[in-house]
């Protein structure tokens, strides 16, 4: 199956082509190019739903994986590096999410991006290609190339097209996440070296199965197997947690979001954060599931759960203190991603499945929120609560979608966010086998996030959207153009569709994550 190779090739070539196109045509050209991976991934999603009913986990049962392709690439001191790709129920929705958000983000760039357009759109496509690679790659080397490959376009997109403090934000983003990758890399390779001759490639499935089989690891440099696993787990957790981000590794995020132009924020919140949780699921929770469930160090799951829950409340409290709409949404992303951590560490079907579903749901909803804030900014040239009020009077449809999106963020039932959060709570409340006796309490504390999120979003909406119309800046609201509002409507529709029928994604997700959960018991 060359479907993934085709997606990658088209997107990469399209990116290169966009760099060469004249600025005036770059936007339309790039959007047209991005329609190919969009349609391709939607088609693949459809094929997956109809033909790959029983596909399991990509790492644990790669035989029947969807769209699989593996070609030997490089021989390297006993290891064969492969071009190896394929999709399971976790990566398929994430890949589709990437394609959907990229196209919509490109359309939403038409209004705000007015300089160096060919470079901007080219970099956006480059980033899309890397993201597709991250979710599809099944070989560590290949995966790592894409993983790092995402950083470069993102760094440039923030650093060149960003706000006043763009250089600070871009460098902070790059150094922070790159340093984290380094730690993760060291942790992972400690495992690889300790596996020794039992693996012949750097294929993630092979490594995962070897690690889970037990007995394949040998002590390395005087460190016992358990300690080695523990250290590797911590190193990888640290590396991925920065991306998510969880407290206290989150401070790059608000800076990056505030400085990044809207479409870049959409990609950052919508997809890039999910790289962290996706990798956590693939590496920490699949390969080292025994460490994750506390078999090596009993305190591990409850500690991770506590970090996740703290992120939920802490992020929400920070959001409550902000006046910049974009900062509010940025901090609330920290809060929402905390739920994902809680769901993962619960290690139950609803917990891990819900966490994965929440990645998709939050990707759509946070993208929607950032876009909505962006549309308001395009019209008013301010994002500050207090600089404007009564916008509902001038841009009713945009405000209508904004309000809907905000309620989606608050977890209104029949919208995707509710399903994600509900599944996580169902999975973690009774997860006493992993999280221990504190599971119900920690889950209940995390749930309080739904009250705080309502507090800050309702407050922000009351101040900016309602009341008598006033605007402190020297701009006139003309009503947003159709191509600014249409992406919002599309995302809102997706959020509702997924909220009404979560099994569109949740079923394949569960098929993919349940093989990880060999611990049994719980819900």
């Amino acid at each position: 199956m060359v479907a993934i190779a085709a997606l990658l090739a088209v997107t990469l070539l399209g990116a290169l082509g966009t760099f060469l196109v004249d600025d005036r045509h770059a936007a339309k050209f790039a959007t047209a190019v991005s329609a190919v991976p969009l349609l391709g991934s939607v088609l693949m999603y459809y094929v997956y739903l109809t033909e790959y009913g029983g596909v399991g986990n990509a790492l644990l049962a790669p035989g029947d994986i969807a769209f699989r392709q593996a070609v030997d690439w490089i021989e390297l001191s006993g290891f064969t590096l492969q071009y190896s790709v394929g999709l399971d129920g976790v990566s398929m929705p994430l890949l589709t999410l990437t394609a959907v958000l990229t196209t919509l983000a490109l359309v939403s760039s038409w209004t705000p991006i007015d300089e160096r357009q060919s470079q901007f759109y080219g970099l956006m496509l480059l980033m899309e290609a890397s993201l597709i690679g991250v979710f599809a790659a099944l070989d560590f080397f290949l995966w790592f190339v894409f993983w790092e490959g995402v950083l470069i376009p993102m760094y440039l997109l923030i650093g060149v097209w960003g706000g006043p403090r763009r250089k600070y934000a871009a460098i902070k983003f790059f150094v922070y996440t790159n340093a984290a990758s380094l730690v993760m890399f060291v942790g992972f390779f400690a495992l690889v070296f300790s596996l020794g001759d039992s693996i012949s490639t750097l294929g993630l499935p092979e490594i995962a199965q070897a690690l889970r089989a037990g007995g394949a690891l040998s002590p390395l440099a005087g460190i016992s197997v358990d300690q080695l696993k523990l250290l590797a787990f911590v190193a990888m957790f640290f590396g991925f947690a920065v991306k998510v981000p969880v407290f206290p590794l989150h401070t790059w995020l608000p800076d990056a979001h505030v400085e990044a132009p809207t479409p870049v924020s959409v990609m950052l919140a919508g997809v890039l954060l999910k790289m962290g949780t996706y990798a956590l699921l693939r590496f920490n929770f699949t390969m080292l599931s025994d460490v994750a469930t506390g078999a090596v160090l009993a305190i591990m799951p409850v500690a991770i759960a506590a970090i996740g829950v703290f992120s939920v409340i802490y992020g929400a409290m920070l959001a409550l203190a902000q006046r910049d709409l974009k900062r509010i949404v940025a901090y609330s992303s920290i809060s929402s991603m905390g739920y994902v951590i809680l769901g993962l560490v619960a290690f139950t079907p609803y917990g891990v499945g819900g966490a994965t579903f929440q990645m998709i749901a939050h990707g759509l909803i946070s993208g929607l929120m950032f876009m909505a804030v962006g549309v308001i900014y395009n019209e008013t040239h301010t994002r500050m609560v207090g600089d404007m009020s009564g916008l509902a009077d001038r841009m009713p449809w945009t405000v209508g979608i904004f309000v809907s999106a905000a309620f989606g963020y608050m977890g209104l039932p029949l919208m995707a966010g509710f399903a994600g959060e509900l599944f996580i709570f169902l999975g973690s409340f009774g997860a006493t086998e992993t999280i221990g006796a504190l599971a119900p309490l920690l889950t209940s504390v995390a749930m309080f996030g739904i009250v705080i999120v309502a507090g800050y979003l309702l407050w922000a909406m009351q101040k900016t959207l309602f009341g008598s119309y006033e605007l402190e800046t020297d701009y006139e609201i003309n009503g947003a153009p159709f191509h600014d509002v249409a992406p919002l409507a599309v995302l809102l529709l997706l959020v509702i569709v997924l909220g009404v029928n979560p099994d569109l994604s949740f079923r394949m997700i569960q098929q993919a994550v349940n093989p990880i959960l060999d611990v049994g018991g719980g819900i």
Partner: protein
Amino acid sequence: MAGAFDFAPAIALLPFVSFLVALFAGQYLPKRGALAGIAATAGSFLLSAWVAITVAGGETYNEALYTFTAGLDAFELHLGLLIDPLTALMLLIVTLISLLVHVFSLGYMNDEGETGLPRYYAGLGLFTASMLAFVYSDNILMAFMFFELVGLCSYLLIGFHFREKAPPSAAKKAFLVTRFGDYFFLIGVVAIFVTFAGATRTPGAFAGEGSFPVLAEHALADGATEGLNTLGFEPDTWFTILGLLVLGGVMGKSAQFPLHTWLPDAMEGPTPVSALIHAATMVAAGVYLVARMYGFYALSPTALAIVALIGGFTALFAATMGVVKQELKQVLAYSTISQYGYMMLALGSGGYIAAVFHLTTHAVFKALLFLGAGSVIIAMHHEENMWEMGGLKDKMPVTYWSFLSGSLALAGIVPFAGFWSKDEVLFEALIHGFGSEGGLGTAFLLAYAMGLLAVFFTGFYTFRMVFLTFHGEPRTETARKPHGVRWNVKGPLAVLGVLAAIVGFINMAPVRQLTGAHIDFLHTWLNGPEEGGWPAELSTGLHHYEEVLHDFGLVSASYPLGGETGTLLVSAALSLGLALAGVLAARSLYAVPEPVEHTDELGSIKTLLMHNYYQDEYQVWLATGVTYPIARAADKFDQGVVDGVVNGISSVSLFTGSRVRRIQTGVVSNYAAFITIALVVLLVVFGVAGGWF
């Protein structure tokens, strides 16, 4: 041949369609979506009537219809319908009142030249759809989902006049306060699923085998706790905790102390909305939920006592505040809170029928009173202060007579609807208070005493309102020349006015006791057949609840005052006497040509009442005086400490880098010196360590 139940989903779907029509096409329709709403709710009403007739024939319905998630290796979550007599009754109430409110809105909104009408009718449609879906939810998760959607609609409609300052703020408050309650509800829902997941595929179901009330009952009765996960608690303790968690949502939506503060503010919404949402239906959702899962609450004496006490206290507490309010809708708002207190009192003290009965009569007469108030507000050019009115009786007779009918019902004067239901509430609390042992009985009696006292206040504030608004001489120019209202206002008022007078006849339990005639139809309706039939299948029959109440809730009745008949008569006489006393007191003070504000004589008590016992103040303080400063502090901490460390690390590396750079001088002799020094140091180290390691 398809039966009524096959069309039951349409009861909620029709108003949903009218929501879509009004939202997207309302701008182009003649009445901006009103007609679509009227058609939809009328259709729903007819379907509900058909369903009710089918249920009367002894048929019920309890099916999963839509799989939310199949759950794979875990339990599934679904949406489905549960239709039993309780559901059928509530469907009728909601659709009827929604229909009347839609018609009334033609007069209140369209004729008054309001803008944004498609949004208004879309909100009404979505609300009606969500409320109906909530009513016939077959499981607690679906109930929660639509409970929340109802909250959203309330938010949208309270904030309808978004250009003004107060409505958006009131809308925010309503959603936040009820969300705070729903937080506990959600924990309860999740906990119920986790608790019962091991024992059934449908852990959240309300009725039938495998439903959580039934499983919980088995667990307590036979110790059948296999598959139940009570997280280390004793089953009865854990079930009490679950009940109390769900109760959080109930208290939020049904505006029970201390989560009642949003409701008076919600009067910022258009008056028909107040009638539909904040009096007759949405606020009923909380109480209805307790009734829906009554088999679960009846298991726990502690939960019952708490429900009864909250109810009794809220009834009295809100009634006292109603006494001093000056605006028509404010009086009605506090009376709503108070009346829902009665329903909670009934549910807590084992009066399931009484609660459902009061829910029914209250829906009718409170919708009537709000619509009557709406009519007055139209007439008064949107002046709501009763002191600016007076003498409207002769100018608007239809409004007056129907409003009077509603007021007599609210005050509990025989034979109007409220008398029968309120009397039954108090009677149940009284006999169970005397009959139940220990703390439970004391709690019931305490709640009863508060409820009884509130009867006097109810009579007083109701007729203070009637006299100030309609009697005496007009006190302002507007009241002298009120604006006329049309058929679309008078029609719904007339319908409800008649109903408020007669709807109490569906359950004249006292008359039955005295004459032996079987005229307590509601009792028969909710009881079902004695043997077999739907009560055996669903376990939601009255008879079953009474058994559970007796066996597990430890609720039993005794008749302290001369047997059942004697107690009944004394109880009825007490509540009627107090109500009349309240009415007469109001009459002597306010039914005079030039009434003055006698409540001023209350002095500091009045200040306390006008400030609602400072309930709003402390809640606002919790939000802005506690939570917000904590958030600010967290922000400072985040920027200063957490991010400070990050920036610190980067400054340290920059600083070291800038210093280390200085040794890169580019002068060869310096490098030579470094090499020499390093070599010497290495040699010394090797010398001391004794060779190459």
